[in-house]
């Protein structure tokens, strides 16, 4: 027994017009200062104005949003009384919006209490719209919430099926002209979702197709979107890929690359997509020795050529490395600019944090502490995994 959760999704050119039809009184837009400065928040506000909604903007969301930020947003929501919360931005903004919504409905709750088995009884005060402005996170369709506990320097994986959005609006107009580095980082995040969603122990028949199609789209369109940010076809297909991957892994789970990337990101503030993509080929090579089947199957489908076993899984890792190199992203932690001494000083903490990351439960080959430590070292040095 398992669940498949999805919001209603409006996607493609002109999808933002769906906001004109929203019924309600007040909407709180949860976003960041950059999107306000770029005028994106005002574009959304204009649509909501046409729908007759009064709007307020909370633009205090930072990358890797903290518990404190979410509390501030919830306080504003309580004061304003919206019947819609609109999460606008990348994963940080949309995750913050989900948490702000929950705390608005349940002011007595601590963010750390948001978990998958607690009946939340949401939608008494408001409903949630998510609008991604990058093509990667998939947070517009997932119920996961990642917040940072700033006291412990640790990311917390929270969420409940109830806090999936009511409506996700996936409009490629919002990602036209994104800079190449942001495009590459977020696109590789989508790829990591697709690959880990397809290969993790929690994958299902309902998620496999979504993950496969997402991976195909990223391989085909990410290099084009990085090379030419105004390539409309590439932008739209990549935007769709991120949502497909979100539906896929969001209804399965991610895996080891995410666990390792979360731990790295919490300490060194490497952008999420860049961090998880660095680790992805190494974790595939690690799994290849004992559980290569799903990786080889994915490689067969992507390459239209049957491969099996460990060589097949390693071919997938090589294919991913080629894409990472092609879009100009780092293939190792060292290439990401992290100083070795600083990395080694944090190694024990990262190993501990990765071990206790929720995504670890779905790894098809679970590493021991020593193996996980070696994986971090190999990923730093850019060495192909041979254990």
């Amino acid at each position, binding site marked *: 027994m398992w669940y498949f959760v999805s919001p209603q999704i409006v996607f493609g050119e002109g999808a933002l017009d769906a906001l004109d039809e929203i019924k309600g009184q007040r909407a709180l837009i949860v976003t960041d200062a950059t999107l306000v400065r770029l005028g994106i928040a005002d574009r959304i506000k204009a649509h909501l104005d046409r729908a007759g909604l009064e709007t307020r903007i909370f633009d205090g969301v930072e990358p890797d949003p903290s518990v404190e930020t979410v509390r501030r947003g919830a306080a504003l929501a309580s004061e304003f009384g919206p019947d819609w919360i609109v999460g606008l931005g990348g994963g940080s903004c949309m995750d913050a919006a989900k948490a702000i919504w929950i705390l608005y409905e349940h002011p007595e709750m601590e963010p750390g209490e948001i978990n998958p*088995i607690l009946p939340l009884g949401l939608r008494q005060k408001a409903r949630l719209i998510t609008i991604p402005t990058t093509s990667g996170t998939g947070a517009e369709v997932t119920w996961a919430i990642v917040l940072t506990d700033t006291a412990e320097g640790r990311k917390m994986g929270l969420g409940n099926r109830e806090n999936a959005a009511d409506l996700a609006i996936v409009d490629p107009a919002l990602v036209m002209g994104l800079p190449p580095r942001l495009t590459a980082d977020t696109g590789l995040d989508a790829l990591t979702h697709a690959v880990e969603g397809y290969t993790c122990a929690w994958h299902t028949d309902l998620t496999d197709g979504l993950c496969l199609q997402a991976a195909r789209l990223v391989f085909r369109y990410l290099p084009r979107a990085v090379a030419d940010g105004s390539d409309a076809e590439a932008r739209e297909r990549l935007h769709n890929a991120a949502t497909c991957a979100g539906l896929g892994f969001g209804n399965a789970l991610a895996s080891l690359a995410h666990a390792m990337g979360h731990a790295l990101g919490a300490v060194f503030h490497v952008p999420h997509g860049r961090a998880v993509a660095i680790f992805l080929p190494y974790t595939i090579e690690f799994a290849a020795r004992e559980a290569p089947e799903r990786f080889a199957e994915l490689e067969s489908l992507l390459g239209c050529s049957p491969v099996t076993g460990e060589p097949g899984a390693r071919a997938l890792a090589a294919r991913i490395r080629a894409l990472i190199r092609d879009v100009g992203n780092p293939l190792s932690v060292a290439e990401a600019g992290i100083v070795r001494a600083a990395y080694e000083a944090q190694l024990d903490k990262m190993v501990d944090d990765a071990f206790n990351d929720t995504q670890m439960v779905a790894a098809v080959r679970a590493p021991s502490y020593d193996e996980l430590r070696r994986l971090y070292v190999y990923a730093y040095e850019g060495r192909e995994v041979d254990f």
Partner: protein
Amino acid sequence: MAIRFPSDEWIKELKEQLNASEAYERSAKDWEGDFVFVVEPDGAYPHTAYLFLGLLHGKCTEAAVLSSPDERKAEFVISAPFSAWRQVIEGRLDPIQGMMTRKLKLQGNMMKIMRYPKAAKEIVACCARVPTDFGQ
């Protein structure tokens, strides 16, 4: 020789397996919290059983069958029918997924458990190492 589940002998063998597991010790080194596992009757098992497992800092401190759930206070109580426990012990039901789908009903702080997924996996691995007779 296989040990009958649920029984005092079975839970004590699980204690032995946990205390022999370096992986469990490492993954649960900060863990503090005892469990009562409630085995509820179903078509395959007609009784109710309460298994107590004391867990502290990567070690199992105590394991025993209880005569009632009130005999020992535990931070976490997980209840499920016999057949669901069998699925967990045989590795066919991930305990985290089991709790998320409420096939395993948890009383206690889910987020505390979610912070120790590796330890949860290691407990299941130790369960699998107990030669178990499910009585059929």
